[in-house]
């Protein structure tokens, strides 16, 4: 189903009701900040959504503002909010929640819920994605462009190494065993192909490390965002395993593996298995010159992945009228059809079960079966590490992980130092 028919369906139902209710003379202007993570012409797609929203809601004007990547969008939204001129609604990281609450700039979504229709809309989201947006008895945002981490693997290289291309590793032991078979050295001893690559650059490692920790039966932060568990045996063990992949088993490139180059490492055949986001499926699909598979994550023993991506937040600095308009816009942007379309256009995981029932996504899954892996893995997935002072805590964790990976510290020392620093930062928030 193409977007035009999505439009018609929506126009037929919600739109007409709204049209009838809204007075034509008063126009409400709202601003919408969004990041585009999948470089390129997606601004056009968003502009298309906004145009359709305008057609249905002639009394609301949405100014959609592309504002860089997630970090830049948060920077812009908070800079603007602090100078008294906040956006009305914005797509920001789900993990920004504590920062935004702490800055007192967002309005909980549940305060807008009034009708049964609203409640039905809210119930349609996957619980795993809603959970991380609930703090202090409020729902602070709704899932929009969500992702999860998956393992891409090169089926041709699996076959060449004598492995079954349809049997990706299910445990850490299998992953190491397969990895060894997939690591190839040339005559002079240089590695020309590595078995596995888990990106470890500053912008990503806390995310994927969260999956390793969950697989090892641990967790990085508490649900209230006030505590971290960096020095627990599960976390230290996960880091030890991460370090061993390079040092002990020699199946992962030494040093820091850059997130941005990992997809091309995989496409070039330098990595036989690579951990990355579902958002990369489109890129891999277009550019892979070999058969590739998408696998859920292995476990030690329980498999687990990590959720990521951005939610829609409504800012409290706007007038009540604007906030109401923003809520309408939020509902529009998170309807089953629109999220399905957005998922197909971008590779994000539609965070509603009813989106996956739409013709749009069913056709897509039929065409690209790999897309379904992300969805099937969601019940096994844990939220991304999320605390107060999230960016600073992530920085502390990432620095610790990198110190261990580069051999500057032992995993145990690195995590003990990180925990001490995190405790120092979070003390203020604990009383």
């Amino acid at each position, binding site marked *: 189903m193409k977007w035009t028919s999505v439009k018609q369906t929506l126009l037929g139902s919600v739109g007409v009701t709204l049209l009838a209710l809204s007075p034509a003379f008063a126009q409400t202007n709202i601003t919408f900040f969004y990041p585009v993570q999948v470089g390129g012409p997606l601004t056009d797609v968003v502009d298309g959504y906004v145009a359709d929203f305008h057609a249905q809601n002639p009394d609301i004007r949405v100014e959609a503002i592309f504002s860089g990547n997630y*970090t830049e969008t948060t920077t812009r939204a908070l800079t603007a909010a602090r100078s008294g001129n906040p956006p009305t609604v914005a797509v920001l990281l789900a993990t920004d929640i504590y920062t935004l609450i*702490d800055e*007192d700039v967002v309005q909980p979504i549940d305060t807008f819920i009034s009708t049964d229709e609203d409640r039905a809309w809210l119930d349609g989201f996957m619980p795993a994605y809603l959970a991380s947006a609930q703090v202090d008895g409020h729902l602070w945002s709704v899932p929009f462009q969500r992702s999860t981490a998956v393992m891409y693997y090169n089926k041709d290289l699996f076959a060449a190494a004598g492995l079954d291309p349809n049997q990706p590793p299910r445990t850490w032991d299998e992953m190491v065993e397969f990895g060894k078979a997939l690591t190839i050295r040339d005559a002079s001893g*240089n590695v020309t192909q590595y078995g596995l690559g888990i990106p470890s650059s*500053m912008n990503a490692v806390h995310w994927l490390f969260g999956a390793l920790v969950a697989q090892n039966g641990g967790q990085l932060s508490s649900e209230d965002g006030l505590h971290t568990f960096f020095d627990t045996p599960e976390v230290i063990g996960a880091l030890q395993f991460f370090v061993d992949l390079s040092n002990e088993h020699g199946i992962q490139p030494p040093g820091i593996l850059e997130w941005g180059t990992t997809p091309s490492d995989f496409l070039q055949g330098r990595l036989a298995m690579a951990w990355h986001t579902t958002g990369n499926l489109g890129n891999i699909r277009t550019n892979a010159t070999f058969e590739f598979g998408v696998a859920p994550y292995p476990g030690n023993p329980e498999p687990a992945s990590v959720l990521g991506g951005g939610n829609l937040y409504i800012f409290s600095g706007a007038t009540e009228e604007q906030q109401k308009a923003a809520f309408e816009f939020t509902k529009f942007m998170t309807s089953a059809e629109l999220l399905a379309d957005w998922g197909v256009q971008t590779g994000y995981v539609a965070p509603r079960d009813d989106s996956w029932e739409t013709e749009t996504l069913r056709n897509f899954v039929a065409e690209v079966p790999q897309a379904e892996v992300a969805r099937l893995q969601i019940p096994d997935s844990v939220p991304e590490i999320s605390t107060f002072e999230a960016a600073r805590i992530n920085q502390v964790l*990432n*620095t610790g992980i*990198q110190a261990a990976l580069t051999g*500057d510290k032992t995993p145990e020392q690195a995590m003990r130092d990180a925990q001490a620093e995190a405790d120092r930062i979070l003390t203020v928030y604990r009383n």
Partner: protein
Amino acid sequence: MKMSRNFLISFALLFPAAVLLIAFTFYPTVATLIDSVYSTPRGRRPAAFVGTGNFERMVADPVFHRAFINNLIYAAVVIPVSMGLALAMALLVNARIKGRGFVRLAYFTPTILPMIAVANIWMFFYTPDYGLIDQFLRLFGWGGTNWLGQSSTALWALIVITIWKLAGFFMIFYLAALQQIPPTLLEAATLEGANYFQRLRRVILPLMMPTTLFILINAVIEAFRLVDHVIALTRGGPNNSTQLLLHYIYQVAFNFWDTAYAAALSVVMLVLLGLIALFQFGFLDKRIHYR
């Protein structure tokens, strides 16, 4: 009488600059100074006076120590090397070489390419195995070096980019200055039997001192300001080995939203730069003779 006339004219002439400087520099600078002795206001907790609290935190902050030392190394390498290379390039382009137009254009390209775009190109150069540098080194049996991914090489990899970016730009100024040197002076020196390097040391370099000061000021500013590639490539990693002062301030202010601590860091940076500025103007300026 004369005094007051000067004052009135000066007042009128300085007015536009003064308004803009006060609005966009002095007011925010003073506000930064004040912010640095308060705690960061959060939506739920207003700012409180903490005196030297933020500065005490800084003394104990290992990331600040790394950033400070890294930035000194960065500046100590970038400033002389980029200036030296700029001078060498200018002398080369000024000499009779083949394809001068192309060589000049080649040196100038980094100035035209915005850092934000170029960072990604350099990332390809530094990528292990199939990256350009590794493909080249492989011809000699080396390779597999993760230039941006290990603590020992990452800062140097960024320094190379900065030097690449700045040297060609500075060259233009040296080139212009070289052309201004009266040929008669050089001929006289040649007649006295001075060889090329003696002419360079005795005639060319002294005459180019004002240009050198101009370039030096720019080089110092850039050595502390240019962090676009840190943001695009390493974000201070691995393990803070590429953390630089302005990048750390940017992170603390716009990623951590700890504006008070960022203000305190800014104060330290302003004092550091102020000292360098005083040295440049007070000391060097007097030793250079303007024509």
